[in-house]
């Protein structure tokens, strides 16, 4: 970008700004002149600013000013009646603020502009996130707007050690990214590591937090998440208290947290807002659901192809009866039905609401009754696929992993029966043992060890047993 030099001539500065933003019809230039001779020009983008603030805090004070001429400092500190105004000499910062809804004011005889915070674009309310609903507990969610998101976190953590460090990433989007942590609770090494990774990337654009997450997380090819995502400020606050870091990206309601362990995939917000007995029951269901979702199709195929003797006789007769006349072997049949299920899920997610109902009815018929009646698929296969589909929804954070594992185990089962399933699962476990998230072992607290307190791993301990300083990891647990 060629260097822009402003002069003390107001008209020249106006022309320069109009040249820079030539072709952008949202640029507004508001000239204001007081009877005493003070002449200013305010630049802002239509739709990005709060019009009332511009009228009352910029235009009116200038027009009614008794100054004949004013320096930038006088304009910012004495004339303008607004809480956030500054003299800006760094052009990069100037344009970053200007493009983000601030107003830039030039005055006659002054080359340095004044930047006034007049941001005022349309915002979504902090409503409950669709995919992180709770039965009870707070219902606020992050929005696409940056500062209100930070306020939502600060409101929950009234601690002077709470830090928000800003970075700008993206050569085109110049997106503000905020690293948030509790100083003294979060390890400095972790903060340093995240800053290092953020500084090492050089993307064109950051339009969502996933643009960052995929670039900086560990095990980037793994379907298991190694960075947490949430749209809920209470979750971020809880993770900060546990010594984790949060990364808030401007324009995205999804906040990243790190490190992220496998146990967090099975945790739900409701686990902490309802009685621990109910919460633990739900958590056991989720754990079982994930295992079912991954294993049931594979075990079914293995039993049907290789180990029919393990199926109780009467059940086998029923299954055999259902399979009579079905053209495909169990492996292909299950694969096909799983594919149909995934296709329906994908279509359901992309279909507008009005058509969604039609889709689900057609899908239900195709998957169920019609396929069985036409001998296209056996009823037990439909049941197995339905179990896998329903239980797969119980752990939304692991949906991708469950999908890959389901198909992988299915292939292993079709090729080698239960031995194949066993070997494949052992390989997955070994792989998980090898994973880490920001130097923390991924399976921390889930694998048995001596001297670890499982307060919130498989089960959530009652709050009266929970220690206050629940750090996710001790120093000696770090993966080096």
């Amino acid at each position, binding site marked *: 970008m060629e260097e822009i030099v402003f002069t003390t001539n107001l008209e020249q500065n106006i022309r320069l700004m109009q040249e820079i933003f030539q072709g952008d019809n949202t640029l507004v230039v508001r000239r204001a002149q007081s009877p005493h001779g003070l002449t200013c020009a305010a630049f802002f983008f239509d739709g990005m600013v709060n019009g009332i603030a511009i009228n009352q805090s910029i235009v009116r004070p200038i027009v009614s000013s008794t100054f004949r001429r004013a320096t930038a400092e006088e304009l910012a500190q004495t004339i303008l009646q607004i809480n956030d105004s500054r003299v800006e000499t760094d052009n990069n910062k100037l344009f970053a603020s200007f493009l983000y809804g601030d107003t830039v004011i030039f005055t006659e005889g002054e080359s340095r502009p004044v930047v006034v915070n007049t941001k005022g674009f349309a915002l979504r309310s902090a409503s409950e996130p669709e995919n992180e609903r709770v039965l009870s507990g707070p219902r606020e969610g992050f929005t696409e707007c940056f500062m209100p998101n930070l306020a939502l976190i600060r409101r929950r953590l009234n601690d002077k050690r709470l830090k928000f460090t800003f970075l700008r990433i993206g050569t085109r989007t110049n997106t503000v990214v905020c690293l948030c942590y509790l100083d003294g609770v979060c390890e400095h090494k972790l903060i340093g590591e995240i800053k290092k990774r953020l500084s090492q990337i050089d993307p064109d654009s950051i339009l969502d937090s996933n643009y960052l997450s995929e670039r900086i997380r560990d095990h980037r090819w793994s379907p298991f998440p190694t960075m947490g995502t949430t749209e809920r400020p209470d979750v971020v606050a809880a993770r900060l208290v546990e010594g984790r870091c949060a990364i808030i990206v401007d324009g995205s309601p999804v906040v990243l947290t790190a490190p992220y362990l496998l146990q967090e995939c099975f945790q739900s917000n409701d686990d902490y807002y309802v009685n621990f007995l109910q919460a633990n029951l739900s958590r056991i269901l989720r754990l079982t659901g994930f295992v079912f979702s991954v294993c049931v199709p594979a075990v079914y*195929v293995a039993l*049907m*192809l*290789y180990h*029919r*003797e393990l199926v109780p*006789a*009467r059940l*086998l*007769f*029923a299954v*055999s*009866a*259902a*399979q*009579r006349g079905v053209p*495909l*072997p*169990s*492996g*292909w049949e299950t*694969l096909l039905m799983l594919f149909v299920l995934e296709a329906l899920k994908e279509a359901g997610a992309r279909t507008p609401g009005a058509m969604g109902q039609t889709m689900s009815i057609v899908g239900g018929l195709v998957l169920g009754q019609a396929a069985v009646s036409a001998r296209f698929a056996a*009823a037990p296969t439909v049941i197995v696929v339905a179990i896998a589909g329903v239980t797969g929804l119980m752990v939304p954070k692991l949906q991708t992993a469950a999908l890959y594992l389901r198909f992988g185990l*299915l*292939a*292993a089962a*079709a*090729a*080698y*029966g239960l031995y194949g399933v066993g070997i494949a699962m052992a390989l997955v476990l070994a792989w998980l043992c090898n994973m880490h998230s920001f130097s923390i072992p991924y399976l921390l607290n889930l694998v048995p060890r001596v001297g670890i307190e499982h307060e919130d791993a498989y089960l959530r301990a009652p709050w009266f047993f929970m220690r206050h300083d629940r750090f996710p990891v001790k120093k000696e647990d770090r993966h080096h």
Partner: protein
Amino acid sequence: MKRLLFALSLLLLCGCAREVSPVSGLALDRIGDQYRMTAEIVRQDSLDAAAAPAYLSATGRDLPELLRGIERVLGNELYLDHAQVLLIDEEVASDGILELADYLCQHEDMRLSLRIAVVRGGDAAALMQQDDEVFALSDLLDLAAEQHTLPDMPLYRVTEVLHADGTAILPALKIDEFKQIAPAGVAVFANEKLSCYLDGDMEDGLDA
């Protein structure tokens, strides 16, 4: 990508898509100098229908030949993993059952929990066909073993005791005057051959 798809296809094509014909029971009779094997095959055509037995027979000189003979008639592979009962007539029992028990024990599909029973004074195949309900015989033998009215002698135990000293006891069955299958005491084997029957309840500790 093409290689991956090809490999995936190969993986999923593994495993046989055979249509199984599960056998729930077998009956072995001696006809002259040959044997006749009758298999009770379970047929269930739809999920709504009840499982019904179908009977197929073949004659031959030894067990492998008999099983192959039934498979030829069936046009499919016999699925013996769920066979629960083997009935033998008195003549087969009198010839000695050690060789039979050994063969069944070594058969890769046969369960070691298979129950062997002697049909007292009649045809084993006829007794098996008396009841048209699948697993009725094995249920009867299970219940009798539970209530100690007949000995609890699965295949592995029969083989074990025959190998030990050649003596064994097996449950005996008959068709009673009401044309029903009924317990008919205990068949006693000495030197691996049917020696005599003991009548009455087994509550006095005769069950093995």
